[in-house]
């Protein structure tokens, strides 16, 4: 219980930090009034500009502005989108399901591919299957996602015409974005599973397990794999952030109607309220996922569960 409360507090600190950065973004780029008005300011009088500044509350000290920002944000009020003229919160939440869908599919895909491949590699180190997996992992880790996305589009979309290039709507639409997004986590988790398995394979308790006469399959899955998952779980927690953050690029390439693409277009149109709402909501989800991962960790490792 103590453990959960501590983790919850840590998550709050993370979200608090993100909110400061999201809030600060507006000021770091210059005078928010001028940025928001842009070229429009040329046609306005000084008094009109000052009116706008007062109306937006930019004349108050920054900490007052931040307090009011947080106060409203807690209630889901991030102000209005200047472009769409609807609440920024709703603009983001409209897109959230698509982002979560893409991230989830990519997440499941990454685990389904990386763990079995990692186990296979570890079972036959330095044999052909391991070598092939190693090369694939190297490619997966080094290729930038925008480039992989474009390659996939050229091959399966333009050349072979098997899959739709852009947009959403059918299950075929999600395949290429999900692969693009999952490529890096697949590669990393596979290597991690492999090295972790190889490490645990040498442990004394695995020798004990073999000495009991249980099948090699049980030795690998009940003893080695379960222990090997511990370092993997930590990596998966960080991956949640990667999948959410990475969606910004992937969604833009594939025209996937998610939060990431919305944030990119909002940045383009200086729609800061939407950017802030998007960043903070993603941070909240990220913190939530990490919390769940930590709980999973304590479930897998009894030493943590009982020590606290």
């Amino acid at each position, binding site marked *: 219980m*103590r453990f959960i*409360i*501590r983790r919850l*507090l840590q998550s709050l600190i993370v979200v608090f930090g993100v909110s400061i950065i999201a809030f600060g973004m507006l000021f770091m780029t210059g005078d928010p009034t001028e940025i928001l008005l842009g070229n429009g300011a040329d046609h306005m009088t000084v008094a009109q500009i000052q009116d706008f500044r007062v109306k937006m509350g930019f004349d108050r000290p920054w900490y007052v502005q931040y307090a009011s920002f947080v106060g409203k944000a807690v209630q889901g009020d991030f102000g209005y989108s200047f472009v769409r003229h609807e609440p920024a919160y709703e603009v983001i939440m409209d897109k959230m399901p698509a982002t979560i869908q893409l991230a989830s599919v990519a997440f499941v895909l990454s685990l389904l591919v990386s763990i079995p491949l990692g186990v296979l590699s570890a079972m036959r180190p330095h044999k052909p299957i391991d070598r092939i997996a190693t090369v694939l992992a190297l490619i997966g880790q080094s290729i930038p996602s925008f480039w992989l996305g474009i390659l996939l589009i050229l091959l399966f979309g333009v050349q072979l015409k098997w899959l739709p290039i852009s947009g959403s709507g059918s299950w075929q639409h999600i395949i290429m974005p999900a692969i693009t997004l999952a490529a890096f986590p697949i590669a990393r988790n596979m290597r991690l599973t492999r090295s972790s398995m190889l490490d645990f394979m040498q442990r004394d308790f695995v020798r004990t397990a073999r000495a009991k006469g249980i099948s090699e399959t049980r030795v690998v899955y009940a003893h080695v794999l379960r222990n090997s998952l511990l370092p993997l779980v930590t990596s998966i927690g960080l991956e949640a952030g990667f999948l959410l953050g990475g969606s910004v690029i992937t969604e833009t390439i594939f025209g996937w109607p998610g939060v990431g693409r919305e944030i990119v277009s909002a940045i383009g149109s200086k729609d800061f309220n939407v950017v802030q709402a998007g960043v903070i909501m993603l941070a909240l989800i990220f913190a939530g996922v990490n919390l769940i991962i930590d709980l999973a960790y304590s479930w897998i490792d009894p030493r943590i569960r009982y020590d606290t």
Partner: protein
Amino acid sequence: MKNEVLVRVKDLKMHFPIRAGVLNRVVGAVKAVDGVTFDILKGETLGLVGESGCGKTTAGRAILHLYRPTAGEVAFRGVDLAKESPEYVRRARRHMQMIFQDPYASLNPQMRVGEIIGRPLRVHGLVKDAQEEKHLVTELMQKVGLNTSYRDRYPHEFSGGQRQRIGIARALATSPDFIVCDEAISALDVSIQAQIINLLEQLRDDLGLTYLFIAHDLGMVRYISTRVGVMYLGKMMELTSSDELYDDPLHPYTKALLSAIPIPDPPLERQRQRMLLEGDLPSPSNPPAGCRFSSRCPLATEHCRAVEPKFREVTTRHWVACHLV
């Protein structure tokens, strides 16, 4: 042997805080050493024995002022170092050295043997120039039985026993009077242990050294020590001359410990009665009330579980902490 006190330990306590919770508050303390009193006489070898968690290693380190004692005093030649300036303590260090259990972990792997042994000479300003240092290092290596042509090799090129010789040479570099040997032979094989023990004895006789010999191997401790102290959960249970401890142990824990040690003599072993202790060692953060040993002592009474016995001189120079003696 003159009865000149070299090190006086009085009511030494060494507690380590346990932190926990969100705010990292101190929720308790590991009472590694919890009030021990003894003298180490010049020229003697005092053995300190006990099982893991008894505080013997911590006591050794606190005596060298590697830790700042929680309470009590450790006086070296009559001076309590805790009350002196850091500079004084630094200079005093050259007179007291330590030999560690794991000879590999305690030697810098990136330094050549000659540098490792010569370093204390330079740190304490005991040599004028490189020429003199080289000369002294050669002398030290000969003293501990290391081939002097190995001075440019690295620690990993040596076996465990040779590394321990390097550790001994390093400890001897500053010509100390007092050396704490902390499980100095525990990591070595039987046939090598005897080599190191013989070397330590010979050095003691040649150089007039005083040892605090910390080990869990009672056979070796009996062999090398003049007097032996038995520790249990941070307390000294019994302290007397080596022979008397083995011939006439008074504390039930000492008796149990001695009976637990098998003797390499099969017919004798078959006849020996074991005094088996129940259960495991309690945690030093939560020792039993009254006598520390009461939870495992076959003779313990209500009085033992309530009142802690005093460490007192029962017969001449035989100290025991037990109500039943």
